[in-house]
């Protein structure tokens, strides 16, 4: 028993050292570089800033770039994330609710479409063509609907599984009391789905906020930039100003980080759904 715990400790210490080198050093490097001024940052040394602690100056500089593009970008990303996640949650919860509660002949088709939504890569130019036809290309509502369409499959999967665990007796009581389908869903179903809704919101919010490819394709233009695109735009402009680039990365990592700190458990349960058969 004793030799075993010693071995456990040795493995533990090795694991901590290795993980520190592989996972913490890149992050620490990011942080210390964002503290430096341009000249010092250009050496790419992994050291504490020697010449000047320039973090605050860097933050101001990053915000001022391109007429405060980062502020616009935070607003854009905020609108995009909140609207698309809210829409996604309501629409997919309704689908998951009906599909799970009702044995319909449509269910086979719906399952197939959900699976297709997870696997099939979206066809980029034809999607732009459709958006143009609807007058939604290069507009925020267009991008919001795109995120909804691409994210729904994952949400439906989670909702459908969860609805299956809620006893139907609760519905039956409400139906006997004369509740219509809308009242049944919003007043009985929705509150019972609370925990899975939180999971879906957190996972999808982080996904949409970190999304790069869809805004790049479907919402081009500097005034429309989302936070991920500021990195892309600043990259050519800053050339070797690693300090500013890294400061920008740090700033746009703050919202997902806050999400992680508060909703750690929900993120984990949402992302690991499927690991256990049941």
């Amino acid at each position, binding site marked *: 028993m004793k030799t075993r715990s010693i071995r456990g400790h040795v493995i533990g210490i090795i*694991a901590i050292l290795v993980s520190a080198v592989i*996972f913490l050093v890149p992050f620490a490097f990011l942080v210390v570089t964002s503290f430096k001024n341009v000249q010092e940052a250009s050496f790419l040394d992994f050291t504490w800033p020697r010449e000047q602690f320039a973090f605050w100056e860097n933050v101001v500089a990053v915000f001022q770039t391109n007429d405060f593009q980062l502020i616009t970008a935070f607003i854009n990303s905020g609108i995009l994330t909140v609207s698309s996640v809210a829409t996604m949650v309501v629409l997919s919860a309704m689908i998951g609710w*009906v599909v799970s509660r009702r044995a319909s002949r449509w269910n086979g088709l719906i399952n197939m479409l959900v699976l297709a939504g997870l696997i*099939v890569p979206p066809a980029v130019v*034809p999607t732009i063509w459709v958006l143009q036809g609807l007058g939604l290309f290069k507009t925020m509502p267009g991008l919001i609907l795109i995120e909804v369409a691409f994210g729904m499959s994952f949400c439906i999967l989670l909702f459908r599984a969860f609805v299956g665990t809620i006893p139907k007796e609760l519905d039956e009581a409400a139906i006997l009391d004369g509740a219509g389908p809308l009242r049944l869903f919003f007043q009985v179903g929705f509150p019972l789905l609370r925990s899975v809704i939180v999971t879906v919101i957190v996972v999808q919010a982080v996904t949409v906020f970190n999304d790069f490819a869809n805004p790049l394709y479907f919402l081009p233009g500097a005034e429309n930039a989302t936070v991920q695109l500021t990195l892309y735009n600043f990259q050519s402009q800053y050339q070797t100003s690693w300090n500013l680039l890294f400061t920008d990365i740090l700033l746009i990592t703050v919202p997902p980080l806050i999400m992680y700190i508060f909703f750690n458990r929900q993120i984990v349960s949402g992302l690991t759904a499927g690991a*256990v*058969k049941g």
Partner: protein
Amino acid sequence: MTTLGQVATGTPTPRRRRSRGPLANRSYPHWFLLPGAAVYAVLFIVPTFASFFFAFTRWNFFSIQFIGFDNFVTFFEDPQLTRGFTNTLIFGVITSVVKVALGLVLAVLLTSGIFARGYLRAVIFFPVLVSTIGVGITFRALLDPYDGLVNKSLAAIGIQGPGWLTDPNLAIFSVIGVDIWKGIGLATLIYMAGIVAIPRDYYEAASIDGASGWKNFWSITVPLVMPATTTVIILSLIGGLRSFDLIWATTRGGPGFASDVIASVIYKQYQAGYYGLSTAGNVILFLVVAAIVLPIFVWLNRKQTDL
């Protein structure tokens, strides 16, 4: 919890005898499906079907001309585009295999009695949350051939590091490494959930029979975490074959076109105004993903039910 498998096989929801057919169904009307179905049909299904038409055209929104299989021929004759095709396969396969192997080992380690478990889990998972573009830019600095931290550290112990992202033969593998760095936390978490769900009785029975740790791993853990393995393989394959962000943030497909994948070719051809060729790339990507993921999916699910 659900498995991806239920979707494919379309396991019907268990029907309750007590539900009263049409009356009960009226409480779950089909029109609930409509709003979601409308968005999905217009912005996903229509473009997907349209892509099978536009892939056979020379197209730029203003004019369109049917050219048969020319785009596909170009795709497989032009060495730049062929390289993108093979790189996609390399990227998808290597990242999936490594994530399965490493993820399982790390998960076993983290569910054993090791100390500082919480710290290790948080550290490994954190990169999953950082934006892919941010990770890509950070590693561009770390992997810089002259000033990068990696090569400076190697130089300190007397090894001259290669040009990780600038050597045409190495670039795609370096990006693969970064992708594994970013995604391993998710694979580990999925495996941890799978391992925790294995009933302790199996291990107790095995230890009475005198089975060692190694034997336990192969005869109990590996077969019983099969659902987790399925999830990790499918997710990594889907993500890996479609990967764009990380490649764009680290190499932009370069040097030259050495690290291009189909997804980056699609973007480049779109930017260059070759919409038909770009769409043909999309169709090829669709076929590649379907041809690889679907058989594995069916096979893994069958294996799962055999147990």
